[in-house]
């Protein structure tokens, strides 16, 4: 009979290949899918996250990490290929260009990462003269500002001041005297620049009368008066102002209406243009009427 009580195997005997009970259980445990997954992925993930967590828990280390990161970003952004050295403003005169430069006030050289081109464009477009602006970075480190300037269409007199106004009614700039921009028509009165479109069509309809037109005056923010030289005035209605003005022009052509001593042509009542004569004309009229009535009666 073989010994039943467990004994150490004599040295040199072949090792028993069978696993011990606990080793067997451990192997089976390790082969269980959930533990297998836990140990092969769960544990490393947990360990790495714990290490990272412990490292980051210290505020100084966090600061150092963020500083290092910022430095890295900084040094990348400051590389010469991203640096801008100059600004070129195209499409406007020198005076406006200076204004735009002062508005943008970049301290060159500057990295293109630090520029907010959209914001810069908005700032340039706030300059009165500028209608539209395009900012782009040209190769060679140049910030190009392409500007489309506003075109003045009229002079707007406000009290003593004279302003240049563009087609949309925006004030572009001031002028010293009317003579500086003699080619532009003049408008005046409260709310004149808000009805600029109508004013421009009235000017366009002037035709032969055009040399005599001094300007347009907005009356009570609702209708236009055309002021001619020799203190003549044409009072236009609120509606159909252009048509009424054209009628006056036609009348002037056919009957030399405006050549006569007429102070005011009142077109406000469309059915019946009304004239006010000048002083000499009125006196002459009275005289003639008296003659006629004296002779006739």
């Amino acid at each position, binding site marked *: 009979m073989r010994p039943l009580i467990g004994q150490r195997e004599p040295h040199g005997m072949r090792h028993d*290949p*069978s696993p011990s*009970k606990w080793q067997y259980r451990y192997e089976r445990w390790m082969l269980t899918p959930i533990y297998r997954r836990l140990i092969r992925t769960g544990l490393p993930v947990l360990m790495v996250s714990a290490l990272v967590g412990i490292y980051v828990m210290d505020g100084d280390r966090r600061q150092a990490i963020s500083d290092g990161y910022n430095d890295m970003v900084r040094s990348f952004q400051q590389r010469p290929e991203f640096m801008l050295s100059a600004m070129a403003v195209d499409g406007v005169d020198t005076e406006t260009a200076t204004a735009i430069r002062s508005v943008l006030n970049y301290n060159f050289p500057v990295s293109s990462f630090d520029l907010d081109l959209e914001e810069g464009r908005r700032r340039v477009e706030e300059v009165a003269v500028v209608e539209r602006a395009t900012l782009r970075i040209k190769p060679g480190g140049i910030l190009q500002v392409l500007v489309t300037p506003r075109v003045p269409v009229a002079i707007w007199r406000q009290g003593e001041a004279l302003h240049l106004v563009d087609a949309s009614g925006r004030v572009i700039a001031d002028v010293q005297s009317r003579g500086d921009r003699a080619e532009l028509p003049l408008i005046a009165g409260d709310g004149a620049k808000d009805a600029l479109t109508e004013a421009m069509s009235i000017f366009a309809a002037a035709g032969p009368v055009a040399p005599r037109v001094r300007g347009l005056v907005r009356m009570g923010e609702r209708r236009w008066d055309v002021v001619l030289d020799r203190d003549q005035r044409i009072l236009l209605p609120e509606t159909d102002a252009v048509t009424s003005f054209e009628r006056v022009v036609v009348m002037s052509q056919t009957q030399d209406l405006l050549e006569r001593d007429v102070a005011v042509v009142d077109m406000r009542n469309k059915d019946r243009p009304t004239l006010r004569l000048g002083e000499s004309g009125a006196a002459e009229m009275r005289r003639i009427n008296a003659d006629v009535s004296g002779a006739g009666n």
Partner: protein
Amino acid sequence: MKQLYETQRAMRNMRKAALQRGLIAILDVGTSKVACLVLRFDGPERSRGEDGVGSLAGQSSFRVIGAATTRSRGVRFGEVDAMQETERAIRTAVQAAQKMAGVRVDHVIACLSGARPRSYGLAGDVNVNGEVVSGEDIGRVLAACDMPDLGEGREVLHAQPINFNLDHRTGMSDPRGHAGNVLSTDMHLLSVDAAAMQNLFQCIRRCDLELAGIASSAYVSGISSLVEDEQELGAACIDMGGGSTGVSIFMKKHMIYADSVRMGGDHVTQDISMGLQVPHAIAERIKTFYGGVVATGMDDREQIEIGGDTGDWERDRRTVSRAELIGIMRPRVEEILEEARARLDAAGFEYLPSQQIVLTGGASQIPGLDGLASRILGQQVRLGRPLRVQGLPQAATGPAFAAAVGLTLFAAHPQDEWWDFEVPTESYPSRSLKRAVKWFKDNW
């Protein structure tokens, strides 16, 4: 009877659970080796599209993903002799197979090669309730079989219905739906030593494994090494193992008889060991390298170095002629085959229409065995190898693995057993309780 039902049904449920999980282990605890295969079930076979027939005749729904063999210890005559040793051998095999499969298995199906199986033919008949045979009638006719006296300490291993008769018609495989009056059945019952079975249970349980089924090794060897025609027409499978030789007879794809001879390859080795005065390990080596059963004139001249490491030069340098070795082996092999012949005769094998005999098992690899066997067993003898199953390593395809491979087929397609049919309602003690539960369910 009730207890048998319960254990077998519990094992069947365990098998279902294992199949649901898709993993099951096969454990063949033999006298000379312990083999463990890990099977993965992938559900129904995926269509291959190339031809209509699935590979391996539809047996490819599973795949062997782990296989391991280890030298068996503590097993004699196919029965557990030293439990600790056997347990360790099982642990070694299971652990290696698990390692190869890369997954843990909890359910095993085992086979029993010794344990003195005894076959009984049972018959029973009942009147059919109603016009046609229903599933319940089958349960009743199976329950009506008169139980033989198995003897003290015996337990039922298999109880398979093999034939149904309805009135005067016989040879029905499935009588359900047939019209008739009297249904009778023939059943094959295989009983084994309860103690041997319990010991194997115990060993497996001590390895933290759940038993999901148990089968006779003679039966599963027959499944794996008999081809379909042989199973259908009638054939015997002789599984020559290490410590015992299983005999099973198949007819109409059912096992109708099984027995085992308590002699095997290990006895041949023992004879060599005694005859040549060498240790068991050397005898085993000489047997596998030079063994045979038919001597020729050439074998007289072929000298075999016996070898050994006793330190005695005279003893270690002995030689023996191959004829002498064959002279030692042949009587024992003849004895085994004659014993098997006696079992076949007792079972009435000669009355079968076809008398094919298939030799398998590790000891069937002795050169010249088929010639010797045909002189003892009859002309229709062939050496059988187990069916190829998917994923089986080359090393495990030999006839020594007939039982292990048969167990894989058994796991995939188990035979209907007695306890798989619904027990007739009369024998339910809990019937009134069930009725009460049913009444509650119906009314609320």
